């Protein structure tokens, strides 16, 4: 009887350690950044619940297959006259499966002459890259493209 209870106790301890230990390891390896957002929360924070329309005016250029996820070139171009009445206010770039989906918010003015922004981003895994464009009329336009990543670029 004593032996049985002893074993049971041992089992409990083992179970507890297996439950707790992986969590701690995970926490040490992948802490959540202070800016951890999901794509839905990020979109809501920017648009304030307004509808986002996928538009052919927004040209998102990204490679279909990126061998190195640490350097993925992304170019966003928008067809816009960029006059004082009608211009692109902001271009937002998201990586939908990174732990922080927000990559860059670019606030443009009519002084830019043309609505274009290019940069290089890091992608953890294969995922969609999304561009959200805010015009001066209050419209939200978007474009997205899937990028396959061979080697992840985060960590």
């Amino acid at each position, binding site marked *: 009887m004593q032996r049985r209870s002893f074993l049971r106790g041992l089992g409990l301890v083992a179970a507890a350690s297996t439950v707790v230990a992986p969590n701690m390891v995970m926490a040490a390896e992948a*802490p959540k950044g202070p*800016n951890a957002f999901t794509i839905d929360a990020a979109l809501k924070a920017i648009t304030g619940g307004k509808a986002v329309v996928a538009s052919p005016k927004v040209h998102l250029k990204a490679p279909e297959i990126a061998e190195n996820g640490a350097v993925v070139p992304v170019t966003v171009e928008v067809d816009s006259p960029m006059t004082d009445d009608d211009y692109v206010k902001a271009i937002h770039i998201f990586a939908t499966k990174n732990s*922080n989906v927000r*990559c860059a*918010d670019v*606030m443009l003015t009519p002084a*830019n002459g*043309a609505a*274009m922004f*290019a940069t290089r981003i890091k992608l953890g895994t294969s995922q969609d890259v999304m561009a959200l464009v805010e015009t001066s009329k209050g419209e939200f336009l978007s474009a997205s493209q899937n990028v396959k990543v061979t080697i992840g670029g985060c960590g």
Partner: protein
Amino acid sequence: MAKRKSLIKIKPKKYTTGDVVKVNFMVMHPMDTGMRKDKKTGKIIPAHYINEVKFFFNDKPITTMTTWESLSTNPVFTLNFKVPGPGELKVIYKDNQGEVNEKSTKIKPKG
């Protein structure tokens, strides 16, 4: 406070007033996400990334950017700029550890 290497390139090299040129701004910056470990010590490298980039022409703001750690190491920012005349293009950039640097270049339209 380390001095960062940065570079502003204007393409094409010859332009006149009213032209739309490409402005290419590059910075040497680690852009650490705060999720990577130092291989020697096993400690997590703290997040260190550029979070604000501002472009000015003759002290008038043109473009303001808010950026996060998802940008690549040594990031490049490319945007268009319509040349209104001669002047100075200045870029001020800040990172999350409080570093503030700036870089400027002269805009000299020909003709």
